[in-house]
């Protein structure tokens, strides 16, 4: 009896489209450019979603896969610092402190296929297949299990596009990005068909890449590059349509992006500002990195808008006393940062400044920046040293925005009025009938 009454097993497919704004998709659905997406809307719910602070792919996808705020998963950016001895490092899956969606599914004996999701390198063991993200340098080390490497190699799978080409040679960049997405899709189909899985996720990074380097051409309707930009997105649209058809009706089909995009008016150098305001000091001639800063430093910053107080007892050469002095420095910053203006236009650069306790809570809270600044759209906060001006227009064209991520779920109504990216992990566990761990911050959104 049981054999016949057994329902077909529920499965979930997730397609991540990195950095594709909700408003952008809406606009091109309306103008008829994305017929497949349009068809999806008729079958499901599509909503604008919030990212996480700071809205960087590594932080956002970490919150996605753990359902947690950064103080629980410990990933605060693509670059971070160890306070003592002072050192810079690149956070990877090694630093991820909360269990991931695929770890939990694996423990529940469900099989997973996970392709290219940020901060999955080095790959951890899963019940299934995992191909790590662009934080990998060598494909051989980016795959779990090792046995899938040969096939990927024969496909010609590429971990990421060459972003330097994006700055220097747009034609070469477009060729690269089209090749990379084709191979990624080919790989996805191969795994989709050849593996047993309950949870399947493909992450498309190329959307973020093309936005970084061609967003201005797109907005300006450049005669040469705007059509190529749109052609790339139409390719993504067709892929979504094709993929959706492959996902049987009683399975779930989810598409999401992790943040929005807007064009960059100026890159703004927060460490330049800190130096001018007397918070950041270098004693030696050498200033090749923050490690050369002088012990007199009171505050230093990391990208994007993460300000660290040089706190005694925490930082290697701390100079600010914990307690009253620390709070005084933070209050000063909260007062002064919003007065930062674009020297050319007089426009305000900072939208809002947060104390870390306002936006983070969890066991890895101590690793967080003391102050987090959220910029106005168009002002991309950078932490480069050795700049001779506060703000300039460089070769990067697009920057991330917080409130314009997107979420699509087929055959479902998306609920909740403060939807954010951490809601996905509990939502997916719920859809697969797996218990949601108590520590999770996100809420089930269906």
């Amino acid at each position, binding site marked *: 009896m049981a054999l016949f009454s057994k329902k077909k097993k529920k499965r979930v497919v997730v397609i991540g489209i990195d950095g594709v704004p909700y408003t952008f998709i809406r606009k091109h659905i309306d103008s008829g450019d994305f017929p497949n997406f349009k068809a999806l809307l008729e079958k499901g719910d599509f909503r604008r979603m919030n990212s996480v602070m700071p809205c960087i792919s590594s932080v956002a996808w970490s919150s996605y896969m753990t359902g947690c705020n950064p103080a629980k998963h410990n990933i605060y950016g*693509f670059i971070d610092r160890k306070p003592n001895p002072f050192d810079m490092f690149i956070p990877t899956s*090694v630093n991820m402190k909360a269990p991931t969606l695929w770890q939990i599914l694996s423990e529940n004996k469900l099989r997973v296929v996970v392709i290219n999701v940020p901060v999955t390198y080095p790959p951890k063991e899963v019940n299934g297949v995992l191909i790590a993200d662009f934080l990998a340098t060598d494909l051989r080390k980016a795959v779990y299990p090792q046995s899938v490497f040969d096939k990927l190699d024969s496909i010609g799978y590429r971990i990421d596009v060459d*972003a330097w080409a994006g700055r220097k040679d747009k034609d070469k960049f477009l060729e690269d990005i089209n090749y990379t997405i084709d191979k990624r899709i080919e790989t996805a189909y191969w795994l989709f068909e050849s593996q047993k899985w309950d949870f399947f996720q493909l992450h498309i990074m190329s959307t973020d890449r093309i936005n*970084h380097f061609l967003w201005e051409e797109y907005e300006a309707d450049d005669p040469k590059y705007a059509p190529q930009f749109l052609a790339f997105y139409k390719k993504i649209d067709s892929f979504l349509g094709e993929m959706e058809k492959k996902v049987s009706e009683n399975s779930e089909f989810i598409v999401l992006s992790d943040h929005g995009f807007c064009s960059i008016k100026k890159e703004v150098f927060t460490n330049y500002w800190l130096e001018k305001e007397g918070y950041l000091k270098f004693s030696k001639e050498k200033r090749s990195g923050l490690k050369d800063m002088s012990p007199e430093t009171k505050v230093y910053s990391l990208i994007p808008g993460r300000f660290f107080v040089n706190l005694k007892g925490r930082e290697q050469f701390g100079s600010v006393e914990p307690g009253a002095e620390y709070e005084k420095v933070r209050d000063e910053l909260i007062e002064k940062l919003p007065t930062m203006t674009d020297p050319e236009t007089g426009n305000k650069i900072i939208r809002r400044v947060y104390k870390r306790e306002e936006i983070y809570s969890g066991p890895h809270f101590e690793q967080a920046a003391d102050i987090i600044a959220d910029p106005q759209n168009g002002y991309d906060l950078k932490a480069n040293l050795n700049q001779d001006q506060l703000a300039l227009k460089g070769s990067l064209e697009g920057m991330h925005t917080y409130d314009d991520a997107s979420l699509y779920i087929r055959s479902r109504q998306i609920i909740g009025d403060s939807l954010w990216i951490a809601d996905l992990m509990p939502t997916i566990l719920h859809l697969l009938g797996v218990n949601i761990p108590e520590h999770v911050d996100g809420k089930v959104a269906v």
Partner: protein
Amino acid sequence: MGKGFTVWFTGLSGSGKTAISKFVEKEILKQGREVEVLDGDVVRTHISKGLGFSKEDRDAHISRLGWLASRFSHYGVPVITAAISPYKDIRNNCRQMITSAGGIMVEVYCECDLDTLIKRDVKGLYKKAIAGEIKNFTGVSDPYEAPDNPEVVCDTAKETVEESAQKVIDKLYELGCLKKEGETEEPYSEAEKKEIDKRLEALGYL
């Protein structure tokens, strides 16, 4: 792969450099890392062969040690050097070489008074030096410049070898040269790190 570092012992002959280094070497190996030990006496029979004990020759000998250590550091291999290395400025040059190659320099000063050293006289050299049979003998007839800011000071006249070694080992953990169990492991080699830095820089993510 972990970060490269150099444990740089300095101190008079018989002050305990070799003895302490043996314990430190063991601890590094225990952590599953490789380690290159460059003992002054041994290096003098190879790349420093033919060099004597004039200031010039000593400086050349120590610079070679420092350069070698910096190369190992660049590739993330821990190094221990155990040579008298009496001159401050040359030791500082070596520190410069090692840190600019991406390594951490951990200077260990083996401090010991002359009376104790003469009493120990492990190699019988002090006796000869005092009798004038060895010229340019550090601490007797040649200068020794103690470091101003060593990472570790071992008072070997008072401490046991084990106690001194423990101080060095504790410092290695404190500085992140060695990782305690459960502590995160560095996922990149130096070369891979450069590649990733370049990629993130192009994206404007650094």
